[in-house]
């Protein structure tokens, strides 16, 4: 009886140590990959930040209105540093996943595989949001200037509407990329966009009928009247 118990105990301990011995190299590899990830992320962060500084990325962001928007969110860090940090976290997260995969635990393997399959979607969604943000800023300013130069009423409101529309479209595209409740997002977007347009149409057609009439009259009369400027500027 005692022998049986001790045998079982020894067998258990032996198999535990055997498993531990099998696991230790994997753990060491995982720790090494993790450390390498830290190092690679740090190096890439420095490189990306330096490259962006050299190519005057911060100035371009300043010109595109990104700095002002960050300032509104109380973020004072230069965009080049922010992108550098993003690069760090991307590399670090990838290496962490690789480190976890090195542990050879089945459910972690599955998680890692899913992560790497999903990563391109995350990247493309980020790119879509960034492009949407930059395009929205540019188009909003273009609309603001065009409206102000043409003497249209409420140029800033018009610019805000343009920016919101572009941002909403970009966000919907990003969510679609991430496959987050695709059908709900699409439906919500169509409903929201359609509602805004319908609302504007109704507001303009009913509420602002008189304003619309005056605007159209003024617009149509302008060529004849152009208020009589015949200045040759050149």
């Amino acid at each position: 009886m005692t022998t049986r118990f001790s045998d079982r105990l020894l067998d258990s301990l032996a198999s535990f140590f055997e498993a531990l011995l099998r696991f230790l190299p994997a753990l060491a590899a995982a720790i090494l990959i993790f450390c390498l990830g830290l190092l690679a992320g740090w190096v890439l962060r420095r490189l990306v930040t330096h490259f962006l500084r050299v190519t005057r990325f911060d100035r371009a962001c300043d010109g595109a209105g990104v700095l002002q928007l960050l300032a509104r969110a109380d973020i004072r860090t230069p965009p080049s540093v922010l992108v550098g940090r993003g690069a760090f976290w991307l590399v670090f997260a990838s290496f962490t996943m690789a480190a976890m995969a090195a542990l050879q635990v089945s459910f972690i393997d599955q998680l890692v595989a899913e992560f790497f399959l999903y990563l391109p979607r995350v990247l493309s969604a980020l790119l879509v949001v960034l492009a949407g943000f930059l395009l929205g800023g540019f188009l909003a300013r273009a609309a603001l200037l065009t409206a102000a130069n043409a003497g249209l009423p409420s140029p800033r409101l018009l610019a805000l509407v343009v920016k919101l529309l572009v941002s909403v479209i970009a966000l919907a595209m990003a969510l679609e990329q991430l496959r987050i409740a695709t059908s709900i997002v699409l439906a919500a977007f169509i409903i929201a966009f359609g509602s805004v347009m319908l609302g504007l149409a109704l507001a303009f057609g009913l509420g602002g009928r008189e304003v619309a009439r005056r605007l159209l009259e003024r617009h149509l009369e302008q060529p004849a009247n152009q208020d009589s400027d015949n200045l040759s500027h050149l």
Partner: protein
Amino acid sequence: MTAADLSFLPEKLRTQLGEIGHADILMGIPSYNNARTIGHVVRAVQAGLARHFPHQRAVLLNSDGGSTDGTPQVVQEASAPSHDTILARHPLRPVHRIVTPYHGLPGKGSALRTVFGAAVALSAKACAVVDADLRSITPEWVELLLQPVLANGFDFIAPLYHRHKYDGTITNSIVYPLTRALYGVRVRQPIGGDFGFSGRLAHHYLEHDVWFSDVARFGIDIWMTTTAITGGFRIGQAFLGAKIHDAKDPSVDLSAMLAQVTGSVFALMEEHAARWATVRGSNPVPVFGFEYAVGLEPVRVNLGRMLERFRGAVRELEEILSLALAKDTWHAVRQLAARGDDHFTYPPELWVRTVYDFAAAHHHRSLHRDLLLRALTPLYLGRTAAFVIQMEHADAAEVEAALEELCLAFERDKPYLVHRWKNREDPP
């Protein structure tokens, strides 16, 4: 002088030029849908050539941008003036007349590139280009633009016009004073559009690789003037009288036009930064022709609308204008907007700072360049409104004196431009 590559000229044109061989004079008329006016221009040019250069071999080249209103036909059919009409004592030498489409980007620059190419192919001594929409051109223009080149060894003759005091405000308030302050040469109409130039200068123009840039589309006039100045060519001016041209297309809006002109000047500033940074003061340019007073068509100005646009922009465009202007300039502009119509003014010193700040912002790309250039429009309207108010009862001499004062302000404040050009930040 290296041989110029003329392969960009249409094959048919090269054949025609080859058949002619050599010419002393080349007259170029760039056109696009100018059927209404080009007949008069062609007749005036032919009369001018017959009257003033009867012994010279002359070629008239119409470089057309694909007109759909029959412009080339009008050029071909415009009858040469009769012997009696032009009062010539000598037998008239027939003027070769060529109508050709041009290759390249659509625009006046591409049309003139064809003229320069033809000038080189014909080894022309003197050339002149005149706009196809002119209503006030006379045969004397031909002599005034060509004679200083042929007889006095000048390379570039810019036009000098008498214009209504409110006309040519982009030229008067930006292009002339800025060009003068930058390069130290007082060319009064740097974007006049009607120029005389030597064959040597035509060859020099062709050596530049600008024919697929904005120069080919709309910036050719200021490019020709600036390139002649920076190339060290002999420059003169010819007094041509009044400039009256066909009414412009009303769909061409002021903002786009101003952006094109200022964008061209600012782009040239980038190219010649090393040269203009050291220039101080300016020198006069010899003038040919007899200056006389001319009757000018009245100009209507809607002052209220200009001021409304200016004030509206100052109110609405803070986000953009505060990026384009230095802090002090922006502060001063905001104060102007608060003034009543009767007391409205835009002092020359502040206008100089405005233009210099925009030039520096364009250089440093503080904002997308197209947006930046368009943001100048309301400020320009404010300055124009102030000028109209100030000059309401002024005669031509007083207007010129005020413009001279503005030019001197541009020259005095040039160190500020140099500073802002080198440093992105506001001056201390």
